[in-house]
């Protein structure tokens, strides 16, 4: 299985063709991130690898929001941390604003860190409870030596005002704020150095619906005012549909489909995309009653030993013999425009209905051991 090629060169070419070259802010080319599994106490030996991200190529264009969806354990958060170089890459290349940043040392990386920031899921876990929020938001200024003393305070208060916090609350602690307000603090910190790219990893998942809407609107307003580019990771498909210009779908460490939002939601080509979209809950009783739900059987296999060929084949209703052998390339299918790419041997035609999935996967992998 390890001998299988990653099948990326055509995919990379397609991804590059899909995006307007000049417009690319961030380009990933065959990015791989494996985590070693070690056994032993004194003498450690590597017994395997978690193939969290296994050959991802995609482009983020200037000013757009790229949505990234997939289930728990598909590698979307690992990919986000690779994008911002919080993890070193196992292999592959990342180009940010025309510069190859994939092998830069931490010191050489520093100027780029100013330009790419992250917002995390848990607004409490990402704020130090013993520090005042003024100094938390001011950290980026201190680390990058941008502003000092009263000037730093003034800038912090302006940021707080920008994200809808009361600047007079400068001296309070994170525990004095509610979940939505803590997420605003996270947004303020991310904005401090005027980044070009913000990677949002599940920024609203921990919030109540009404508060979630406040943060989504805030992110959208900031994007149009400040010309930001977002990578927006979420497992909630309706949130991703609402915010994204383009959407990439991940399954077991690989991107299976990328398309513009409307195309992806109306004519999904990959059976996994179709199943995922059909499973999303709809807050509308009449629509919920008529929709055809494709219920997938089994669980996501373990990324330690992913299925051969197309990784979705053991659960795919359309799988045939070739799917278990040959990994499909991420290319335009069925006369799709170049910007809609799918990695599937038997993509779904317009209006096609998926049959029931195989009840028991043919070559059953132990479901999801070690996941979650």
């Amino acid at each position, binding site marked *: 299985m390890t001998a299988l090629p990653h099948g990326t060169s055509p995919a990379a070419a397609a991804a590059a063709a899909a995006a307007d070259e000049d417009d690319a802010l961030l380009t990933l080319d065959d990015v791989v991130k494996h985590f070693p599994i070690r056994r032993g106490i004194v003498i450690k030996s590597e017994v395997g690898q978690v193939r969290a991200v296994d050959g991802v190529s995609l482009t983020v264009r200037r000013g757009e929001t790229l949505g990234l969806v997939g*289930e728990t354990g598909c590698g979307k958060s690992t990919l986000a941390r690779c994008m911002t170089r919080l993890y070193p890459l196992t292999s592959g290349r990342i180009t940010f604003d025309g510069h190859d940043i994939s092998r830069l040392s931490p010191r050489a990386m520093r100027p780029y860190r100013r330009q790419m920031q992250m917002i995390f899921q848990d607004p409490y876990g990402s704020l130090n409870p013993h520090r005042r929020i003024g100094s938390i938001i001011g950290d980026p200024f201190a680390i990058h030596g941008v502003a000092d003393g009263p000037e730093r305070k*003034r*800038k912090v208060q*302006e*940021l707080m005002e*920008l*994200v*809808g916090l*009361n*600047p*007079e*609350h400068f001296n*309070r602690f994170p525990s*004095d*704020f*509610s*979940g939505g*307000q803590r997420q*605003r603090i996270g947004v303020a910190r991310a904005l*401090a150095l*005027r980044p070009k790219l913000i990677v949002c990893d599940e920024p609203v998942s921990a919030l*109540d*619906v*009404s*508060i979630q*809407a*406040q943060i*989504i*609107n*805030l992110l959208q*307003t*900031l994007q149009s*005012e*400040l*010309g930001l580019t977002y990578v927006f990771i979420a497992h*909630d498909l*309706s*949130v991703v*549909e*609402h915010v994204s210009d383009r959407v990439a779908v991940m399954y077991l460490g690989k991107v299976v489909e990328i398309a513009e939002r409307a195309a992806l939601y109306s004519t999904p080509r990959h059976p996994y995309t179709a199943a*995922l979209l*059909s*499973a*999303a*809950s*709809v*807050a*509308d*009783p*009449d*629509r*919920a009653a008529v929709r055809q*739900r494709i*219920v997938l059987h*089994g669980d*996501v296999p373990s990324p330690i030993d992913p299925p051969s060929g197309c990784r979705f084949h053991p659960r795919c209703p359309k799988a045939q013999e070739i799917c278990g052998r040959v990994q499909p390339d991420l290319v335009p299918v069925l006369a799709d425009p170049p910007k809609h790419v799918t990695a599937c041997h038997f993509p779904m035609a317009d209006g096609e209905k998926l049959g029931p999935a195989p009840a*028991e996967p043919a070559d*059953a992998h132990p479901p*999801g*051991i070690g996941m979650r």
Partner: protein
Amino acid sequence: MPLLEVRDLTVSFHTSDGLVQAVRGVSFDVEKGHTLGVVGESGSGKTVCTQTLLGLTPGADVSGQALFDGRDLLRMSPAELQRVRGARIAAIFQDPLSSLHPLYTVGWQIVEMIRAHRHIARSAARARAIELLDMVGIPQAASRVDDYPHQFSGGMRQRAMIAMALALDPDLIIADEPTTALDATVQAQVIELMTKLQTEFDTALIIITHDMGVIAETADEVMVMYAGKAVEKADRRTLFYFPHHPYTKGLLESIPGSTAAGERLRPIPGQPPSLISIPTGCAFHPRCQYVMDRCISEVPPLFDIAGGHTSACFLPTQILGLGEDVDRERASAAAAGRAENGAAARLAARATEEIETAGVHLPDAGVLAGAGMSDRSRGPRTSQNSPDDAGTQP
């Protein structure tokens, strides 16, 4: 007669910070074979409400009545309650990993649960456990029955919890956020399983969730809770298409992708109140665009609207539904109930403005100046002491 009849349930806790009024006079019925959806934000009292029925809120001050099959759950002795709990009322909780003991096999836990209530042989109970796991769709149930919880995936654990809940053929299942910790595809499987088993066994179900999508798919009747009170009760279609209470309307309009939400979401301004210092009058009034003078001083009772639809709001009962036309009617009805420049008028103006600007205050200069953005048009500024800040008071 309804299977469960809760009347004026009130639950409060004494804490070092003060009295937490978690549930403030909630009444509802659950019919045999029906599903009641309870929806609300965190801190609305929805979980406390049902845990109290099961005797799982020790130390709380509880009053009211909860007749289950004619007997009051709140006045049962611990031994009596023990016989009801698990056997006749089962519970499924949000996090299946913390509801299962990590050191015992899944099968052992199901067997133990059966044998706690029924005098049957261990082998018979084990056979029943395998049968149940098979019924909820665990593959190779006969061998997986000896697995430990960590060997199950999240979806399988929740299935195991459902199997355990069904083990003694209960009359009522209380499912508290049963799918919140699960992925969309697994959530779809679990919901499908629950509704299928419910029709098969004619079990009554209370589903507690913050996800309107889950409600839309499962509930027959829906109760919306806010700050410890039921603010609106209706059947599912009425609630989604003809809501009366501004809070229900706000919840529906905040959901991305729902018909109610447009290109830009319309969030509810501000934060849910602390249950220690609940606002006077209608607890929702500081966040409501349609606040009237009487909302600040009087607590609205649940008004009858039509055929079982009730709403705790002073707005005229004929103004129902979503959309701009209805919103205009609401606004003019609310304006008629406000003195000019009174407290209610100021609150309403602030709430409306905050919905429109979504809490974005662009500064006059400074941070953005260097980025060449200083001459961008600026959004309207809202008051510094927006209701958003209300939650920050320690």
